[in-house]
């Protein structure tokens, strides 16, 4: 009691009974532990990234947080409400955006869906007008309001969906892959908007994504889930450290040469005059480039950031090392 926790998850688990046909009229029952005793707290106004491989339990957690799934065990509260018991009451206070799904009326102009939200969430007229005007301006929807949703591009539709989720001033916004399939400009626009939303209105944001840049640009805190268990909860920087994440320097040389030697970087692949050097994410790329350039004929280069899946994969596969890392400033490693 007394703490600022807006979302409280205590030892929550979800078990599914899956029936599978194993033969003619024969069924096998199998218990699948989708979420295995996870606990975390999110304070009001926090922006948290929630990541993990496909099937790790992310969506199940979000479905429990929004009340469309009932936990098999544990305690769960959002804004003091038990979501599965009072789904409809909670729905007025949360917003949900799926990158791959839409809440908008496909056949009708965008504005019709917004008018529906107006009625659905019983938004007072003045507030509806004000919010609509603000969202239309911030998300650049002026020219799209009269366009049927089916004619919108993916990026436009996504912005339309984000606006739809925010018309009723939700206190918490759940975003599931909000930038999936978007081009660079659209991604930047959605991210900039979310940052502003969080800064100015203090909206709590829980973001599920596979895009590391979403997390880097938006979230100060990351939670990693794998096989239904929370395996990391802390700062993004700490995640790299725990996961011993590596960046990749790709260099094009003038001609084929033997693998470059530049420890701590190591060559992981050679293809004609092109070589791939993996180096710790914590090392400076500039220093490495300078060293390589000093004694190799360099034509072109690029640095690739580690993708989040790789970081997590490495982290999950080296429990012994990661176990040594937990320090207060790095974050908790749970597992």
């Amino acid at each position, binding site marked *: 009691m007394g703490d600022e926790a807006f979302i409280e998850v205590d030892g929550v688990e979800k078990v*599914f009974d899956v029936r599978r046909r194993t033969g003619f009229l024969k069924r096998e029952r199998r218990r699948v532990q*989708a979420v295995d005793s996870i606990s975390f707290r999110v304070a009001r106004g926090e922006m948290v990234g929630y990541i993990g491989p496909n099937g790790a339990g992310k*969506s*199940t957690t979000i*479905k429990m947080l*929004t009340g*469309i*799934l*009932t936990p098999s065990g544990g305690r769960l509260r959002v804004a003091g409400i038990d979501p599965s018991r009072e*789904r*409809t*009451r909670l*729905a*007025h206070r*949360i917003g*949900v955006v*799926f990158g*791959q*799904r*839409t*809440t908008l*009326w496909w*056949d*009708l102009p965008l504005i*019709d869906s917004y*008018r*529906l939200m107006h*009625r*659905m*969430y*019983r938004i007072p007229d003045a507030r509806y007008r004000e919010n609509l005007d603000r969202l239309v301006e911030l998300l650049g929807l002026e020219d799209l309001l009269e366009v*049927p949703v089916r004619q919108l591009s993916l990026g436009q539709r996504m912005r339309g969906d984000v606006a739809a989720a925010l018309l009723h001033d939700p206190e918490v916004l759940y975003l599931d892959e909000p930038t999936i399939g978007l081009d660079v400009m659209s991604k930047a626009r959605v991210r900039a908007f979310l940052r502003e939303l969080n800064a100015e209105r203090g909206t709590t944001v829980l973001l599920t994504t596979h895009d590391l840049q979403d997390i880097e640009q938006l979230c100060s805190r990351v939670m990693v889930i794998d096989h239904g268990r929370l395996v990391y909860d802390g700062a993004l920087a700490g995640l790299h450290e725990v996961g011993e994440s590596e960046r990749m320097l790709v260099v094009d040389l003038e001609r084929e040469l033997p693998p470059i030697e530049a420890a701590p970087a190591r060559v992981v692949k050679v293809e004609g005059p092109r070589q791939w050097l993996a180096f710790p994410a914590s090392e400076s790329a500039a220093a490495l480039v300078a060293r390589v350039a000093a004694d190799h004929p360099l034509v072109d280069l690029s640095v690739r950031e580690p993708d989040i899946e790789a970081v997590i994969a490495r982290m999950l596969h080296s429990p012994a090392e990661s176990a040594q890392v937990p320090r207060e400033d790095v974050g908790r490693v749970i597992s």
Partner: protein
Amino acid sequence: MGAGRLYLAVAVGGFRRYATYRLATAAGVFTNTVFGVILVFTYLALWEERPGLGGYDQAQAVTYVWLGQCLFATLAIQGGGAEKELMERIRTGEVAVDLYRPVDLQLWWLAGDLGRAAFQLLGRGVVPFLFGAVFFPMTLPTDVGRWAAFTVTLVLAAVVSFAIRYLVALSVFWLLDGTGVNQALMIAGVFFSGMLLPLNAFPGAFGEVVRVLPWAAQLQMPADVLMGETGVSGALAFQAGWAVVLLAAGRALQSAATRRVVVQGG
């Protein structure tokens, strides 16, 4: 109050969504008119052989045909209403989005489907019916009260029709694909609602059974009320009874279904 406005907005949306597809509507009007003409001549030949079949004279048989064409799309007798979209949303898991909303799932889809039905009646049903009334002898009431009662039977027919299709759509939560049930729905709908032949004309015990099934509430009841072949209060009670039973069943199935919504991924 607020809820009423919401579901009204949903119904208006349903109406407008179907109104967007003008070419499809025009094609539907044409099809129903042509089908009506074919059926009328078939019926006339049949009633020539069997006068008074099902208690109808020739003009009543013709009226029945055109009412059938008028209500064919309105009541989504062979499917193709809200349930089609709902099945697709369940199959893809998109129905989760609907569950995040502070609305009742069944009322939401009912409102949308009634909006659709209203459009199909005005945009697609009225023209074939008027065509029939102009070019063929029909039995139509002259008193306003009968027309009013007929209008009420239409609304109840639309609700019963929705309630049946909603149940069928929810089955996709378990079956994971709606192709099979859709076909069953289509055949049952066309046959049991009396699209092929008035249910009154079905003989013996089979006829007795068919006339008390919920599909009888769709075309047979409005037709008999319109032509004065049955008592108004009995027809309304029959329709309302089925509407309540089927909507309640839909509600029960819905709460069982939403408990397993997770199955369809992501």
